[in-house]
């Protein structure tokens, strides 16, 4: 394998590395630099040091967005993982066991296929779909029913304290199936003898879940938490399409990606938008470090 190795290695690496450096690494490096300028796109950028970051501290929209990421970061993983774990357990271990063979409930395969489907759809498409579902008059899927029964329509996306939760509900709707499949894979790798032994000792399904499944699934749960955390820091497509005027009403659902987009491509405040991007970068990094620290726990060997 020695002959002519280097020309080959360089030939194979050149194009991928060039593409990657041009469109990923180079922009990332520039983002830090632009965030220190007052660049508006027309004249040459002027160095302003940490001015943009100081302005961030007084920016109400920025703090609202950060707060919403906090809510998303707690609610999205908690709700999604709880529902997905419950379903995955039912689908994999919920059925009767015969001869130590674990079985899911009846129709498990069908449920898995249906639950997973929203994952295949683009978030932007789902957002348009739920615009229809949430419509505030009789043409909405939910309010159409409510109004038939003479109940006042619910203004899902218009009420400030309801709007963010309506959006979280859609994100959960999309995500649950993915995690059901993910957790199912994890549960399938737990040896049946462990369940068998626990059942011999008289463990109920609930005990099985909390004492056997959950501890043995810890690593998968950690992965799920990180994934959902990353999703919580994005949420651009859903907020941009589903919410009232991009993060509204009155900033009640805005997220950082939305504010970055608005500042950069509506107001042409490129320096300021980049500062937000850098802030988001450090938030993401903090989250990743915290997650790794908090969930660090001896994984159970089996």
């Amino acid at each position, binding site marked *: *394998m020695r002959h002519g190795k280097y020309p*080959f*290695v360089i030939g*194979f*690496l050149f*194009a*991928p*590395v060039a*593409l*990657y450096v041009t*469109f*990923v*690494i180079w922009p990332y490096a*520039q983002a830090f630099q*632009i965030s220190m300028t007052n660049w508006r796109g027309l004249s040459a950028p002027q160095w302003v040091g940490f001015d943009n970051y100081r302005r961030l501290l007084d920016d109400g929209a920025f703090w609202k967005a950060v707060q919403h990421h906090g809510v998303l970061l707690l609610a999205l993983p908690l709700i999604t993982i709880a529902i997905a774990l*419950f*379903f995955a357990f*039912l689908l994999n271990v*919920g*059925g*009767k*066991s015969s*001869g130590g063979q674990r079985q899911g*409930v009846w129709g498990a395969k069908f*449920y898995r296929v*249906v639950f*997973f489907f929203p*994952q295949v*759809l*683009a*978030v*932007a*498409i789902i*957002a*348009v779909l*739920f615009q*229809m579902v949430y419509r505030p008059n*009789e*043409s909405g899927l939910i309010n159409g029913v409510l109004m038939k029964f003479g109940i006042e329509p619910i203004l899902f996306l218009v009420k400030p304290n309801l709007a963010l939760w309506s959006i979280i509900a859609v994100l959960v*709707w999309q995500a*649950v199936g993915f995690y059901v499949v993910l957790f199912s894979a994890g549960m399938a790798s737990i040896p049946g003898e462990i369940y068998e032994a626990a*059942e011999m000792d*008289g463990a109920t399904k609930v005990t099985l879940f909390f004492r056997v499944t959950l501890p043995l699934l810890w690593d*998968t749960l950690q992965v*799920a938490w990180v*994934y959902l955390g*990353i999703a919580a*820091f*994005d949420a651009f*497509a859903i907020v*941009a399409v589903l919410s009232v005027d991009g993060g509204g009403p009155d900033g009640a659902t805005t997220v950082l*990606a939305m504010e970055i*987009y608005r500042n950069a*491509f509506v107001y042409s405040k490129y320096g300021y*938008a*980049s500062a937000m*991007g*850098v802030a988001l*970068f450090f938030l*993401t990094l903090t989250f990743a470090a915290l997650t790794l620290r908090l969930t660090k726990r001896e994984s159970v060997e089996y």
Partner: protein
Amino acid sequence: MNPQSTLPPTPAALPPKSGDPSAPAGSGHKGPRSEVKLFAGLGHVALAVWAVIVIVPILWTFLAAFKNTSEIFSSPWTLPAELRWENFGRAWTKAHVGRYFLNSVIVVSCSTFLTMLLGSMAAYVLARYKFWGNRAVYFLFVSGLAFPVFLALVPLFFVVKNLGLLDTHTGVVLVYSAYSLPFTVFFLAAFFKTLPSSVAEAGMIDGCGHTRLFFQVMMPMAKPGLISVTIFNIIGQWAQYQLPLVLLSNAKDKWVLTQGIADISVNAGYEADWSGLFAALTIAILPMIIVYAVFQRQIQAGLTSGAVK
């Protein structure tokens, strides 16, 4: 959840451990057993309810696509009075869904092909060749997994603009591919590492060059991994919304499906063409259902492949 499952599998297989042998149903164990039964019942109900929650909005959209606007308002829950196929015609041509759909197909097939070609080349070299700087290049790629795209949104826009690629499909294809490389390289490098080196050595002895070895021996051997990552990339790039929004903003005829549908939903309010919007949504969703129905197993494996390492 079946109540039987709280009992041991077969009486013979189990030495009676506690004071609860596998007695006939219901003997002195009524309380917990009916509780379990209740729990099992609730479990089934919960599963069915979630299935309904997933299916109904989509089905409801399909039905509404055949209605006219007054029907959508007066009877949102009934079947359409007649099958108005013209809604689809209007969405396809007048609202340009056909154009957007085609654009998405063009962009995603090009960018996935480019991603897979470049990604597997880089991954292969990084996984199977020792050379100076190998680790550095590998970490350069993998570090991209940790950064959000929008951190670099502003400079990215200007990089593309300065290259003269703004509002072109070429620009979008290159950017999609670049941002797909970290995961592709990360996953495929791990995959190429697992391939046996005996086959590669045999190929070299037979006078096979490095390049031929890669395309004719290693690529076919890596097929399962390549399929998973390809599916992952197709679905991820098909769903992209923010990048095309920024990179194609001034060229409406080049828009991809996600951005087109989102735009139609904004305009549907002004034009009061709700049935056209429902038809457009149906056109966007239906192909995904068909593709998913056919490749369901591969898609589930492909999308979760990133998490199950």
